[in-house]
C-alpha cells in the first residue's frame, strides 16, 4: 500500500514536471534600437531582420549588435534564409529579391504580385503570400500553383501575411480572417486553426511537424497550438504588437514591431 502511494506521488510529480517543461516563459530581450522588425530568419547564429519602416534588412547577433545591413529594400516583410540564400518579399516593389553572397537578383515568378508579405523556401519548393491578391503562389519543384482567393470560407484567404512549407503541408497566416489555414501541396484546404481564440490579425506563423505558433498582432499575444488545432498556451509576457515567431533549438523567438525588439522564450 505504501509503495503504491509512493508510486502515485512520483507519477503526479513526473506529470507536473513534464507539463511545466511544455510551458513557455520569458528568457531574454534582444533590443533592436530603432529597428521595427516585421519578419526574421536565422543564418547560423545571426538573426536577419526585415525593418519595414526603414526599408532595410539588418543582421544582428544575440546581443542586438548590428553586423550587416542591406539598404534600399522596399518595405521588406517576412523573409526567409535557405542554404545561405536570403529571400526578401518586397511589399513596396511587388518583387521577391534573392540575395546570394551579397549579390541581389529578382526571383522569376509566373504572375505579378501585389504586396508580397511572406516567402518560404523548402528544398526546391517556394511559397509566397500575395497580400492584396488574397492568394498564395506555390512552386512545388516542377510547376507553380495558385492557392486561395478572397473570402472567409474554407480554402479562401483574406490578406495572407506569412507562410511556411512543411514536408506535406503549407501553413498560411490568414491575417484578417484571424486564423491559420493549412493546405496540402495540391492546394486543397485541410484545416483551420485559431477560430475560437478571438485572434485579431494573425500576422506571423511558424510551424514544426507537430506544433504551430501564431502572432496575434492587435491582442499582443502569441498562441501555441498542437498541429491538431488544440490550443497549448497563450503567451502574453513582453509581447507588444508581434509580427513574427520562430522556433530554434527549443527557444521561441518573437519579434515585437512596437516593442522594437525580439524576445526569447524557453520551456
Amino acid at each position: 500500500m505504501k509503495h503504491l502511494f509512493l508510486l502515485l506521488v512520483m507519477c503526479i510529480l513526473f506529470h507536473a514536471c513534464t507539463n511545466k517543461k511544455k510551458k513557455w516563459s520569458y528568457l531574454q530581450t534582444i533590443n533592436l534600437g530603432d529597428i521595427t522588425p516585421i519578419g526574421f530568419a536565422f543564418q547560423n547564429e545571426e538573426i536577419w531582420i526585415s525593418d519595414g519602416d526603414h526599408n532595410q534588412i539588418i543582421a544582428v547577433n544575440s546581443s542586438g549588435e548590428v553586423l550587416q545591413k542591406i539598404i534600399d529594400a522596399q518595405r521588406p516583410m517576412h523573409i526567409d534564409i535557405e542554404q545561405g540564400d536570403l529571400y526578401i518579399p518586397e511589399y513596396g516593389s511587388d518583387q521577391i529579391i534573392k540575395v546570394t553572397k551579397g549579390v541581389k537578383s529578382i526571383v522569376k515568378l509566373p504572375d505579378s504580385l501585389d504586396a508580397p508579405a511572406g516567402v518560404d523556401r523548402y528544398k526546391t519548393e517556394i511559397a509566397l503570400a500575395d497580400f492584396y491578391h488574397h492568394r498564395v503562389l506555390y512552386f512545388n519543384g516542377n510547376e507553380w500553383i495558385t492557392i486561395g482567393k478572397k473570402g472567409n470560407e474554407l480554402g479562401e484567404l483574406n490578406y495572407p501575411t506569412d507562410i511556411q512549407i512543411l514536408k506535406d503541408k503549407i501553413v498560411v497566416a490568414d491575417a484578417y480572417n484571424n486564423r491559420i489555414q493549412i493546405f496540402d501541396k495540391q492546394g486543397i484546404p485541410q484545416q483551420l486553426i485559431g477560430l475560437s481564440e478571438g485572434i485579431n490579425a494573425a500576422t506571423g506563423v511558424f510551424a514544426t511537424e507537430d506544433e504551430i505558433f501564431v502572432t496575434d498582432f492587435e491582442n499582443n499575444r502569441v498562441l501555441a497550438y498542437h498541429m491538431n488545432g488544440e490550443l497549448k498556451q497563450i503567451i502574453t509576457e513582453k509581447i507588444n504588437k508581434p509580427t513574427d515567431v520562430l522556433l530554434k533549438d527549443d527557444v521561441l523567438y518573437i519579434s515585437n514591431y512596437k516593442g522594437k525588439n525580439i524576445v526569447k522564450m524557453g520551456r
Partner: protein
Amino acid sequence: MKNTRIYILLSFLFFGLLSSVKAQEGRMDSFTVKVEGLGCPFCAYGLEKKFKELKGIKKITIEMETGILKFNYPEDRLLTLENVEAQVKKAGYTPVSVTINRSNGSVEKTTAILEKNITNGQSTTFNLFVSGNCDMCKARIEQAVKNIVGVQNAEWNKDTKVLTIKAHLNISQLVIEEVISNAGHDTQNKKAQDSAYVNLPGCCQYTRKQ
C-alpha cells in the same frame, strides 16, 4: 564675325528657353498629410502604395510614429486638398489635416474638424456600442462622428468597443448611428451596408454579429 555673334545669341536664347522649360517641368508642390491610425505596418505600407499610383509623385515618406505622410508632386498636375483626402480615404485611412506648400510660395490647408465644429449651448455625454477592430477603425469612427455639427468630442475604446460622445442636446443618437454605419461600422441599432463594410481595409473587417 557677325554670323558668329548671331549664333552665340541664338545659342543663349535656345539654352535659356530650354532651362526655363526644364525649371517649369521640375517645379513641385510639397504635401504634408497627417493620418490617424497608422498602427499596423501592413496597412500603412498599403497607404504608401496607393499614393505611388499617382503618376509623377516623388520623395514619398511615411513617418509611422507621427502619422505624417510627405511627398512632392508636379505643380502643373494641380493636385488639390480634396484629391489628397480622397486618396487617403481610398486606402482606408482617415486624414486629419493636409497642407500643400505650392511651388509659387502659397500655402493651402484643411481646417481641423473640431475647429470648425465649435458649438454653444447645453451638451450631453452618452455611450454607444460600435463594432471595429483596430486603430484605423478608431480613427475612422471618431472622425466620422466629429464631422457632425454639434458634436464636441468622440472617443472609441478599441477593447470595450464603446464610443463615448459629447454632443449638443439637439443631436440625435439615430443621426450619429447613421453616420457611423455609413462609414462601414455596425452600431448597436444600425447595421452598416454590406458595400460599406466590404470597402473597409482588411484589418478593419470586424466579425459581424448575425
